[in-house]
């Protein structure tokens, strides 16, 4: 019909007659049973026209004096023209578009409250006071854009009756719902109402051409006199032909009946999905919606993506609703296929959520320290079942995708990364909350497979990837500062064995740039739960700060790999430096307010490790427990949302309330010697326990400190002050290669009970090319810490290390490995004169030229 008409006549002015308009008007008015129709182009235009009609009608029949109201309801969507958005309640449609047209509204002019959809009493309230002034009431029989909101039966009827009571035009927007979509010709027919004005659009042309129309009675329509309203394209012959053809299809193919039966079939199919994710399936005819329950930050959008992957395009509205409006001509088979796709996608969706049985927990440990400072230790952990190696589709719900992909891509089952600033003062603070407290950045990974070259490449890729993720200079970890320790990190048993590589950047500065991507990996980021407390200003303005992550894989009994991903952040904050006295609250300490628990967290707690006496907490903690022999108060954020814990300390007179906290073994390292060309390292290891302790000692030095392993001397001083030589049980020494690898010294030692052991060895300082010096060459080079690792033995005495106590409380692990990191040291290397290159080249070449000249003379001189 379109092409046929297009070849005949496309447009003529309304001022003239054509053979199409009249016929079409007759056809359409008869089709819908109205007296008159006014053809327009788009839905919004038709709505505008209806509003104008209503106002004009009010002017004529209700004696309104250009102050008549046209009211709508909350959540309406009729279009995006000025008049229509004056009525809208959706801020997206309105914000920034004002000022709006007065007296076109969905708000009660008296109370300012919105006129709710599906609440006839709201309409009644308005009409009661302003009935005389209201010209029209505009409503959608089913609110499409708002999420296929189907009103209660009787609501529309009641509205209609109210309109009649107050002599208000009942205007029905059937643009989306009309023409067979809902199983009746007009959706309003379900309520057996005949609105005063019906607006048609969309389907009126079958999607071929923009055609809309306003249908009404003669009385209403003739309120507008010729010349008072018009449209260039409205009712053009082409549109008329198309509209008539489309309606004929609807009639001839009995689409109304079809929509009704298929719609029922569709909803019935969808209702069979028994999933807690699906909140509601609703609709009429073939206008339907699925409402999903948002879980773990996933919305209808994610389900739509899954639908798309399976070949079904659908659009979400309002985060949780998916609108499904298939074409009326869809076949039953196609519809069944759609149902099938949706069922499968929902299954995928829930599988994705449950795939690794991912679970998330967040804990904050607050420990007031002996010297008045406070340790804040955050731990966020996610567990999941790792996808099998042959699985190509991966769903990441709580587990951060970045880490999952890095782990797969670089064959890494075990990964540890930490950024630390400020030294952990073991003598005052006791055991640190985590096992990596060396200043700078530390990366450790176990790379699967035994191919050395390949693992070298993977390691390089891994550090580069991490560098990108955490905005850190981890890409400077290369073969010159990577070691392969064999004794120190044996405790972290992983699902697979592989090459363990350990890289260290002692010079790395930690800053917000690193924290931001770290926070982004949390399921709730810093929007709820403990993440709210992560205020960089306070965390970085602390005496000790360590931020890190660890990924550990273990094999479960059924052969699956369980991955545990833990993010930790510790900070030692000094309340007195913040001007806080003996009484302060958590929110004052971090300058952020604690809110509700992260919804995705299965556990969300604040643990306060109490000194033996002298601390009052407010509000009352939810429960109490024990950690490393200390009383601990626990606040459960899930039962106590928006808690702010106030700490009040009694004045510190008796130091007995603060048990002395020393670690079993402590390690301190110094650099010895003077002058720029050589030096030495001296490490003191103290065993405070009553039994001997087996330790391993790892010291990795860069190649430009040329270590002489034969100068290694280990002496130990017993409690009575006598010195003896100590022989290591195992020694692994890898000499450095210039610009190739660091030297790494690894020793297994048994420290006698209550002893002090000194390790000494010497090195020569290398001379670097002038390009190899850093810009501040005379400051020196930071040298990473030595690491002492030992098994905590209950018999050895002393409290259980904090990180082990935490681990034990969570998983019941009994093994406890402690690592102590020594201080860094600064090695100043001899520097060349950086301004000399040209002079040196000139002078040296002069000497060479002199040599050449003389020898040439000697060889060619002939005395004879």
């Amino acid at each position, binding site marked *: 019909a379109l092409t046929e008409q297009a070849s005949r006549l496309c447009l003529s002015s309304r001022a003239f007659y054509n053979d199409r308009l009249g016929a079409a008007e007759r056809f359409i008015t008869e089709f819908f049973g109205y007296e008159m129709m006014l053809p327009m182009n788009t839905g919004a235009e038709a709505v505008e026209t209806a509003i104008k009609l209503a106002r004009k009608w009010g002017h004529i029949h209700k004696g309104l004096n250009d102050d008549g109201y046209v009211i709508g309801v909350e959540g309406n969507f009729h279009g995006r023209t000025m008049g229509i958005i004056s009525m809208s309640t959706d801020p997206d449609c309105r914000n920034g578009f004002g000022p709006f047209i007065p007296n076109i509204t969905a708000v009660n002019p008296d109370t300012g409250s919105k006129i709710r959809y599906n609440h006839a009493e709201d309409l009644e309230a308005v009409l009661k006071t302003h009935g005389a002034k209201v010209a029209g009431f505009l409503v959608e029989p089913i609110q499409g854009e708002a999420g296929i909101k189907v009103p209660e039966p009787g609501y529309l009827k009641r509205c209609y009756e109210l309109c009649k009571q107050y002599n208000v035009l009942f205007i029905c927007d059937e643009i989306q719902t009309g023409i067979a979509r809902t199983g009746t010709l007009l959706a309003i027919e379900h309520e057996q109402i005949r609105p005063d004005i019906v607006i048609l659009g969309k389907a009126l042309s079958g999607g071929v051409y923009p055609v809309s129309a306003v249908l009404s009675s003669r009385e209403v329509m003739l309120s507008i006199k010729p010349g008072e309203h018009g449209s260039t394209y409205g009712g053009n012959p082409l549109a008329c032909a198309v509209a008539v053809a489309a309606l004929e299809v609807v009639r001839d193919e009995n689409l109304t009946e079809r929509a009704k039966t298929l719609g029922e079939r569709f909803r019935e199919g969808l209702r069979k999905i028994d999933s807690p994710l699906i909140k509601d399936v609703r609709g009429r005819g073939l206008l339907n919606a699925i409402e999903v329950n948002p879980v773990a930050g996933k919305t209808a959008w994610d389900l739509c993506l899954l639908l798309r992957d399976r070949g079904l395009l659908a659009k979400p509205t309002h985060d949780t609703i998916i609108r499904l409006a298939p074409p009326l001509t869809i076949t039953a088979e196609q519809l069944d296929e759609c149902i099938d796709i949706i069922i499968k996608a929902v299954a995928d969706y829930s599988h994705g959520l449950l795939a690794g049985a991912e679970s998330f927990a967040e804990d904050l440990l607050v420990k007031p320290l002996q010297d008045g400072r406070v340790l804040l230790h955050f731990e966020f952990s996610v567990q999941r079942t790792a996808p099998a190696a042959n699985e190509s589709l991966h769903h990441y719900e709580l587990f951060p995708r970045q880490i999952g992909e890095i782990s797969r891509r670089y064959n890494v089952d075990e990964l540890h990364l930490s950024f630390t600033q400020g030294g952990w003062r073991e003598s005052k603070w006791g055991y640190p909350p985590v096992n990596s407290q060396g200043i700078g950045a530390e990366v450790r990974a176990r790379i699967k497979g035994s191919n050395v070259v390949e693992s070298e490449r993977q390691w390089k890729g891994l550090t580069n990837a991490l560098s990108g993720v955490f905005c850190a200079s981890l890409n400077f970890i290369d073969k010159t500062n990577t070691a392969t320790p064999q004794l120190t990190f044996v405790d972290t048993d992983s699902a697979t064995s592989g090459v363990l590589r350990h890289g260290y950047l002692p010079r790395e500065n930690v800053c917000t740039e690193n924290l931001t991507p770290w926070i982004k990996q949390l399921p709730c980021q810093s929007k709820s739960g403990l993440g709210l407390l992560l205020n960089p200003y306070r965390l970085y303005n602390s005496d000790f700060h360590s931020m890190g992550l660890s990924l550990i894989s273990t094999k479960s009994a059924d052969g699956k790999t369980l991955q545990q991903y833990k993010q930790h952040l510790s900070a030692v904050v000094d309340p007195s430096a913040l001007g806080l006295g003996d009484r302060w609250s958590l929110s004052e300490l971090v300058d952020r307010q604690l809110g509700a628990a992260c919804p995705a967290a299965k556990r969300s707690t604040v643990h306060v490790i109490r000194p033996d006496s002298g601390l009052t907490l407010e509000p009352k903690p939810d429960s109490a427990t024990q950690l490393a022999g200390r009383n601990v108060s626990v606040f459960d954020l899930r039962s106590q949302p928006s808690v702010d814990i106030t700490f009040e300390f009694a004045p510190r007179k008796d130091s007995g309330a603060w048990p002395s906290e020393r670690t079993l073994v402590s390690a301190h390292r110094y650099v010895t010697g003077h002058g720029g060309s050589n030096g030495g390292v001296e490490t003191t290891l103290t065993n405070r326990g009553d039994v001997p302790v087996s330790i391993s000692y790892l010291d990795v030095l860069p190649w430009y400190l040329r270590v*002489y392993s034969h100068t290694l001397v280990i002496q130990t001083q017993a409690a009575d002050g006598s010195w003896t030589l100590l022989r290591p049980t195992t*020694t692994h020494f890898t000499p450095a290669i210039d610009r190739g690898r660091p030297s790494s010294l690894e020793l297994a030692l048994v420290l006698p009970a209550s002893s002090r052991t000194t390790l000494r060895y010497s090195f020569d300082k290398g001379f670097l090319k002038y390009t190899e010096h850093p810009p501040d060459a005379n400051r020196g080079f930071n040298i990473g810490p030595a690491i002492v690792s030992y098994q905590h033995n209950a018999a050895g005495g002393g409290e259980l290390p904090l990180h082990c106590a935490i681990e034990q409380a969570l998983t019941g692990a009994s093994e406890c490995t402690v690592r102590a990191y020594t201080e860094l040291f600064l090695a100043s290397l001899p520097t060349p004169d950086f301004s000399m290159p040209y002079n040196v080249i000139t002078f040296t070449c002069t000497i060479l030229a002199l040599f050449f000249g003389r020898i040439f003379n000697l060889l060619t001189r002939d005395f004879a």
Partner: protein
Amino acid sequence: MSADSEQNTAAAEQNPDTAIIAALKRQLLRTEAAERRRLLRVLITGSAIRLIILVAFPGLVSHYLSSRVELSTPVTSYKRLVEGVHLSIHNTSPYDGGLFHQSPLLLILFRLLHVLPDLFTNIVYVAVDAMIALTLAKLAAAKADKSKSNRVPGEIRFVCTPSAVATMYLFNPLTVATTLAKSTIVFSHLAIVSALYAGISGLTNQAIMFTAVAAHLSLYPAVLIAPIALMAAVSRKQAQQRWLVGDIALTLAKFAFATGALHLLFAAVFGTQYFMATVDFTLRAADLQPNVGLFWYFFIEIFDEFRPFFFVVFQLTALAFAVPVSWRFRDDPLFAGTMLVGIISALKSYPSWGDLSLFLGLLPLFEELAKYLQYSFLSANLLMYGVGLAPVFWHLWIELGTGNANFFYAATLVYVFGQITLLFDLGGAKLRRELDIHYPETRTRTVIQE
């Protein structure tokens, strides 16, 4: 002397001819015996001094001298050698690391010494020095025999007796310091002087073997094969009155075989790392630790793009003149060898004072050239300044931090310049003396250079 002459006169009265000859023979024997006694005294005194210092002041040796960059280089440092031995004892390949760059021959020797008390190591060093002195003395004697015919008319007898040569070597402070620092360069030196002695004595095969060992220990002495080959050819030339290309070629082939065999043997034991750690390490001057040579500061400061180019230029300058210099002094291959030792000492990649001490030790063999030297005052001063200033400037730069690298660099420039001056003064003197031998009438004239 006066008693002797009285006796001679008495004998001459009895039987003039035979008596005089007998008396001369007796006198000669007595002089030789006295000379031998003097040499022995020199050797014993020199060794005793060294041993006493080593035993009495072990701290001085291990903490001060052995870490002096002027004495110990990355390829001769005793501390690095001990580290290499330590690593090899603990089943780690010493060449798989950046520290050890010395020959496996030394590794084997010192693994044996490692199990013995330190005294034995000291004795080995002292003995090696004494052997070098002894060989130099023998060289002096051999040369004196050979050069009797080769004299400028009117020249009087040599005063540089073998014992004097040994004295000049053993009591040179640079030599003493090198031994006390236990620099392994002395083993290379022993091989060099042994090769020269064997060469001049006509023991060609031994000479080739010693040269190969010297080349194996410190690479550069390989150039000495040129004068050694000439020595072999000279002894044949005297018989056949012409140069034999075949002789030279044979010597070179034997040397190539010996050197190749040594390197391949150890490469088979230690893998390719051995090659990289020794030969490649020496040629590329990979360790930029300062020394008294030209390489270190140049390659600290040079732009990366030019590095390979200048490696080639520097090494070519040091090595390429072996053949032309040897040919120029083909009539006196020992002198050619001495010149090459001097060139190596000035231009090798890791030179030390020990290298200069060998050159200075060989100089007295050419005592006859002393009066032909034109710049002896200049070169002596330059060398003394260079040697004296280096420790001072090092102290200012490294220990006190009040000086910078340029100070030490300046001292090394002076030092190398002094060596070059001495070297070519010596070469010029040799040529001038040859001229005097062949044209005695020109003796009083000055030579004007074109």
